[in-house]
């Protein structure tokens, strides 16, 4: 614990780097996952194999994926971002599709019959009704991104993993804790935040 407090400025920097990695990845991941999730829900024949592929990506060991990407994209910030975006796709796309497929068909039929256009049905009816399930996906994806982002340290991209892996290799638990405690706090805080939002939007 002492190490954590004597290195507070560095802890702060690594935490900010960590947040930058996760935040950037989350935004990019959502931009990709939203259309994919909608598509998977609309075209179930495509959705199933798509989720299969994303699930397969999800099972690639992240370190191996990171190494492959460094070869083409180099070290630094963006390579771990690509890894995080790739890993998040499975959970995000799955939950976005599940959320949309879980919308009560009667409400959609009513919306159509009342004269809402397809865009109005999507934004005013489907998205709000699917939101709790979608947000559940965002929560799980973000928490796991916080964990996986520690790997950024392996590719010279900083973050709290720097403390963790340095501490592990130097067999210096205090240093490992200086990375893992803030990461855990971050994960718990993000989890609580999203749970709160989920509750607020659940009907």
């Amino acid at each position, binding site marked *: 614990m002492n190490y954590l407090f004597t290195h507070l400025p560095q802890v702060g920097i690594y935490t900010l780097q960590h947040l930058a990695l996760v935040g950037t990845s989350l935004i990019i991941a959502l931009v990709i996952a939203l259309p994919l999730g909608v598509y998977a829900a609309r075209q179930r024949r495509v959705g199933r194999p798509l989720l299969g592929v994303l699930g397969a990506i999800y099972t690639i060991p992240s370190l191996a994926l*990171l190494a492959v990407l460094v070869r083409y994209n180099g070290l630094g910030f963006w390579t771990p971002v690509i890894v995080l975006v790739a890993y998040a796709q499975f959970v995000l796309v799955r939950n976005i599709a599940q959320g949309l497929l879980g919308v009560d068909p009667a409400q959609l039929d009513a919306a159509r019959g009342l004269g809402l256009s397809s865009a109005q049905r999507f934004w005013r009816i489907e998205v709000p009704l699917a939101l709790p399930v979608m947000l559940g996906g965002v929560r799980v994806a973000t928490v796991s991104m916080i964990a996986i982002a520690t790997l950024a340290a392996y590719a010279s991209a900083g973050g709290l993993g720097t403390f963790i892996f340095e501490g592990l290799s130097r067999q210096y638990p205090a240093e490992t804790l200086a990375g893992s405690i803030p990461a855990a706090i971050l994960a718990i805080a993000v989890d609580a935040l999203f749970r709160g939002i989920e509750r607020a939007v659940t009907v």
Partner: protein
Amino acid sequence: MTFTRRTAIASLGATLLLPACAGRGGGANAVAVGSKNFTEALVIGEIYAQSLEAHGFTVRRRLNLGSVQICMAALQHGDIDLYPEYTGTGLIDVLHHAPMQDPAAIYRTVKSEYKKRFNATWLDPSPMNDSQGIVATQAVARRYGLKTLSQLATAAPQLRLAAIAEFLGRQDGLPGLQRVYGGFHFKDVKTYDAGLKYDALLHGDADVAQAFTTDGQIGANNLVLLEDDKHLWPPYNVAPVVRLDALKAHPQIATVLNGIAPMITDVAARSMNYAVDHGKQDPATVAAQFLKEHALH
């Protein structure tokens, strides 16, 4: 403390600037030095970096890389110009070559293969050999008359082994010992975290422990490293792997790093590893101390 804080602030600044200067290299005399992320790699990476700096290079450190695959990927992508690697690792993990025993032959093989496949080369290897091994306390070694692994193979049923988990499954771990030496059926095998297996050994919870031959605890606790008399484990001499393009641009890299290669011995490596792992010293500090002692600064 002041030093730690200063390095913390410096690296703080550096990490903040990282995205800004994400391009490769820097000035005319800029070299990017990488290393893997364990103690010995970090220290040797620092030794390379600081000796290059002492000769007027501007060094960009990309230490702490996660695996040999990431180091090679970064080298091929041009993010790093050089990094310390073990000849055995290059042979087996990178080239997927069958294990070999002769250090000179291994070095020749990796050097020519790296040139062909990766447009990279190996500078002069150091005498330091970070291979695997089995260690025993002086007392246990005396009681069971242990000097070699052949002797241990027969004595094993009376003894308890402490090892990291992957040692039990890997072909160059316990199964390899059983294949090459026969025997090696320990009374008990317990797995430990890398750091804790020495505690187990010193507290008498185990009689022998799997080790890496430059582990700091070997020298610090005067442990006996048993001789691999049937040569299960290939040599793991350390040497800089350098991109040929970088070497062409800065031929002086070879002069500088070949100059310090002979100083990096098993004994030096063990004491530096110990200073970092147990003395809680910074790898950079330990490397600076090493270079000062060897009058290279």
